């Protein structure tokens, strides 16, 4: 396939050449190596053709301009020099575009990301459609990179330092109106007239009638440079804990580049891009990205399995989980029937959902009308009326086996035979809930994470009896509401709760042995988790944690034995944040460790100092080993699913690539040695997973492309 096929050229009577980008056979346009070359040859043509007075670049894809670079190209980079060269090739092409004899205007409709934005930045003028699908940004930092096609240099020179740093460091994209405010685009117009408006601007530029204001970096920002950059650096460090080199590099490249000439700045950018592209962090973030893409193609059921489209969802329970699920469904335009026992509970659930959207309303990312429209889609009820039309029912009632069995029986009576019943339990085996039900083939688990609207993972739990269509229905629903979906086999705690239970259990053992709460939390946030284990225990609820721990202990024996002191903590009425009493205090403005909790633990108030490394080793290996056991037992279908589940469900550090990528990085032999060391010190909790032993012996990795 010749990539010149990606462009069609059409010149109108007035001499405006419209270049339409349409990479054949792909859903979206990406800027591959070949595409850059094709681009150059077109620019050659424009140079020679005197009749061309202006150029408009648009996309032939329905709702995307250019979605960015072809990420596969990144994985082929073998050395920093190669990465640098890739960046320089893009620079050369876009420099020529910028220097084009005639004005070039970008007509942007749909997603314009990464390389697409950099292409637009090299144009002389940018027009965007006002469609909500139009969004413009530089997400490279999310893949552990800096923009490599001029973005770090052209963006600050166009919109100023603060605005550019915000976009480059967060990777967030702007909708058209915001892009106009920021000066990132020059005009915003309705999509149907986008090309016409772009053509008019192009001619206006050619004839000198249109002269866009390009003030460059404002003098105020020039004066405040040191403050802007030191603040940017500080906020990056605070957000990333120093685990991610890309945003720090980006700050430097922008800082040094904007103090120098554009060519010098591009030079710095290319060097940084090359360095980062072959770095571990970027490699792992890219691998996580591919894992999330790959999982959509290998979704846990044979391709072609018919999935029922969910037009109506039944939700049982209007608590945080139930209401959260109702909210994300309503957001995806699914009609929801939400049932709870009382109108008070329903009212609280509705208020919770509305609160989530009111927050977005305040941030102007949602209109008042849209909030009302979404609320209209949730129909509260205290009985099962309306469930007959539901294709999927998700229960989020109290974590109690008998209760869940009862609501399953009630749901079976109230729904059609094809209806899928999903339990949002976080620890009860689905097989136990389904035991004795009428339609076991229609029963599975849909384990959402709290808060539902923010946590990107959905863990679907299937029993040997679950029908493939039921899995396909649940999986496609999960994707429709924007979740990464892993399909795991049924078992106590499935994958996520089980790995987390092992990790949390180790944290409570360390508390029992005398560690201080803040030492443990600091150690694990230092490791890269978003919150520490003790904070998490408070958030989840110490009672909930204890319940899960009991289930785990029951099924897995000594390996999951909880420390005795936790009973005392619970008996003291410490349930965690919901009771405003746990390991931390919640009455003051600032959350503080509640010192009185130590009286309930062996060792009392005098805590033993713990080295962060020791805590990290014990907690991480508890997590890693349990993950390997899950893979070995077939709870996990692949290391990929384990990585995606741990990162998006449990906050496992993305820069480590997930537990299996991390194990591959450490090496099975080293991991096994560490496990054996911990086993000798702490006993059964660290019995190495047999699969790890095998891998260590055979010198193999979990992932085929482990490094």
């Amino acid at each position, binding site marked *: 396939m010749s990539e010149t096929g990606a462009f069609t050229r059409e010149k109108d009577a007035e001499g405006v050449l419209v270049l339409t980008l349409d990479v054949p056979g792909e859903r979206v346009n990406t800027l591959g190596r070949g595409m850059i070359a094709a681009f150059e040859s077109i620019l050659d043509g424009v140079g020679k053709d005197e009749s061309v007075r202006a150029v408009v670049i648009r996309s032939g894809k329905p709702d995307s301009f250019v979605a960015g670079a072809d990420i596969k190209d990144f994985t082929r980079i073998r050395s920093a020099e190669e990465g640098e060269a890739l960046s320089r090739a893009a620079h050369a092409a876009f420099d020529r575009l910028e220097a084009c004899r005639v004005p070039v205007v970008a007509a942007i409709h749909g997603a314009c990301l990464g390389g697409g934005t950099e292409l637009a930045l090299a144009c002389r003028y940018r027009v965007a459609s006002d469609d909500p699908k139009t969004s413009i940004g530089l997400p490279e930092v999310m893949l552990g990179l800096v923009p490599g096609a001029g973005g770090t240099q052209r963006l600050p020179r166009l919109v100023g330092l603060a605005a550019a740093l915000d976009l480059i460091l967060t990777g967030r994209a702007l909708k058209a109106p915001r892009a106009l405010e920021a000066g990132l685009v020059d005009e915003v117009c309705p999509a149907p007239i986008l090309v016409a408006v772009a053509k008019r601007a192009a001619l206006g530029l050619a004839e000198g009638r249109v002269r866009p204001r390009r003030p460059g970096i404002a003098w105020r920002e020039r004066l405040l440079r040191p403050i802007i950059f030191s603040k940017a650096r500080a906020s990056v460090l605070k957000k990333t804990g120093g685990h991610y080199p890309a945003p720090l590099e980006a700050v430097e490249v922008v800082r040094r580049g904007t103090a120098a000439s554009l060519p010098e700045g591009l030079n710095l950018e290319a060097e940084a891009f090359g360095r980062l592209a072959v770095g571990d962090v970027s490699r792992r973030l890219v691998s996580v990205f591919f894992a999330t893409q790959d999982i959509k193609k290998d979704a846990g059921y044979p391709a072609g399995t018919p999935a029922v489209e969910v037009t109506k969802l039944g939700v049982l329970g209007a608590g945080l989980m139930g209401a959260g699920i109702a909210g994300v469904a309503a957001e995806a335009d699914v*009609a929801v*029937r939400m049932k709870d026992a009382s*109108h*008070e509970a*329903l*009212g*609280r659930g*509705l*208020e919770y959902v*509305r609160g989530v959207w*009111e927050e977005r309303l305040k941030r102007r990312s949602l209109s008042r009308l849209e909030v009302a*429209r979404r*609320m*209209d*889609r949730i*129909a*509260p*009820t*205290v009985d099962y*009326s*309306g469930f*007959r*039309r539901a294709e999927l029912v998700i229960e989020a009632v109290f974590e109690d086996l008998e209760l869940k069995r009862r609501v399953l029986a009630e749901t079976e009576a109230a729904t059609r035979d094809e209806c899928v019943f999903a339990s949002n339990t976080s620890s009860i085996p689905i097989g136990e809930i389904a035991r004795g039900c009428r339609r076991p083939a229609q029963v599975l688990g849909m384990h959402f994470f709290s808060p539902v609207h923010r946590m990107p993972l959905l863990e679907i739990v299937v029993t040997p009896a679950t029908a493939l269509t039921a899995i396909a229905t649940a999986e496609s629903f999960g994707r429709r509401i924007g979740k990464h979906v892993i399909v795991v086999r049924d078992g106590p705690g499935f994958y996520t709760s089980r790995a987390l239970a092992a990790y949390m259990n180790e944290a409570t053992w360390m508390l029992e042995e005398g560690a201080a709460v803040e030492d443990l939390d600091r150690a694990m946030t230092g490791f890269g988790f978003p919150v520490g284990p003790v904070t998490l225990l408070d958030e989840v609820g110490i009672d909930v944690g204890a319940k899960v721990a009991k289930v785990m202990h029951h099924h897995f024996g000594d390996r999951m034995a909880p420390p005795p002191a936790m009973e005392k903590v619970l008996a003291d009425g410490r349930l965690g944040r919901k009771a405003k009493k746990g390991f931390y205090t919640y009455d003051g403005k600032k959350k503080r460790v509640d010192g009185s909790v130590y009286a309930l633990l062996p060792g009392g108030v005098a805590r033993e100092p713990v080295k962060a490394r020791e805590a990290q080793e014990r907690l991480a290996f508890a997590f890693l080993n349990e993950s390997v056991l899950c893979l070995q037992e077939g709870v996990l279908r692949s290391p990929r699913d384990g990585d995606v589940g741990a990162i998006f469900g449990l906050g496992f550090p993305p820069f480590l690539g997930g537990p299996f990528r991390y194990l591959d990085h450490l090496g099975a032999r080293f991991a096994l040695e560490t496990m054996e060391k911990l086993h000798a010190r702490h006993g059964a909790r660290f019995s190495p997973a047999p699969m790890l032993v095998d891998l260590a012996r055979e010198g193999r990795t979990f992932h085929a492309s482990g490094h």
Partner: protein
Amino acid sequence: MSNRRAAIVAGCRTPFARSGTVFRDLTAVDLAKVCLRELIERTEVDPASIGTVVMGQVVPSVKAPNLAREAALGAGLPKSIPAHTVNRACASASQAIADVASAILLGHVEAGIAGGAESLSDVPILHSRRMARILVETQKAKSLGARLAALAKVRPRDLVPDAPAIAEPSTGLTMGQSAEKMAKENGITREEQDGIAFASHRNAWAATADGRLPAETCAVHVPPAYETTVTSDNLLRKDTSLEALAALTPVFDRRYGTVTAGNSSPLTDGAAAVLLMSEERAKAEGYEPLAYVRSWAVAAVDPGGQLLMGPGLAIPMALERASLQLSDMDLVEMHEAFAAQVASNIQALQSKAWAREKLGRSTPVGRVDRDRLNVCGGSIALGHPFGATGARITTTLAREMKRRNAKFGLLSVCAQGGMGFAMVLER
């Protein structure tokens, strides 16, 4: 007409609440949305099978004049279903039901939803005509100077809002005054009026206590905080007595009058709707209809005479179209705008003079058996959201007919402008 029949499959309403109370911050569209959504959920009807939505509203909102369309969209009905709003004053929901029944009988649709809603907490308050003119001029003014000049014309009296009154535009008489006039001219005593009011409360309370009315009612979770959930009507009183009613002062004619707040229907917020289907479709879908529409009629009298005597004309017309007698009716539902109006119409139906002069027939229409009248209470006790009442009455009558296994039922609604609506249901 063809041999098709329009079936009343189900009905549903929001609780009815005194205006300015629990539904104070909601609009009629909000109430209608909940009502339609709940009707669809409870009947579990395939929303795509609905062919039309017709709703009544008497005091429309300027912002959403086609309530039916907004409510249908908000209730999640497919966007491809057309919807329109009708205004036949207090008989609007009945008119909506008649419209959908017509569409079914004509074979235009197989199923439809009809009902209505009213929020008298959300009536449009208008500027005076002069103020409105000044504001329009201000808006059109091309310069700041012209704008200020236009605004400078505002006088304090222009700021007095123009609230709509429930009065006849053609006569200027309010509804209450009209009822007062009817009571006097027809010799309806205070005792008779209070008796009707008492029966309304007593029957409504009984039908609430034994669950008949709650079964027709859906809960409304009141946004934005959803702290309040309205699950029951807030107007009816368990403890009303004839003595308490007798103690009230007349409102419209303090000196010689007999019409009191106790024997009139109060200003009310609420919504109600029914699901209709062709007989064939209802049976094919496995529904057991509550009742079928047998006939209906609308009539009008001179609004300058006795305003609320429309039912006295419409009832015999509907009965004649049904080829039935008043005595064939097992149950009768009469909308109680005022007890005086109910009594006047009952009196007319059994009057030879009325039959001769107004109907051109020699015999009276017949006697309304009080034991079969408004057996679940009426608008005096439950309230009267203008646009919704017709659907409430139809639902209650149809359900009660089914419960009692009654053969025929009659309903009537009097309306502003001297109009009256009547419908005969059969099983």
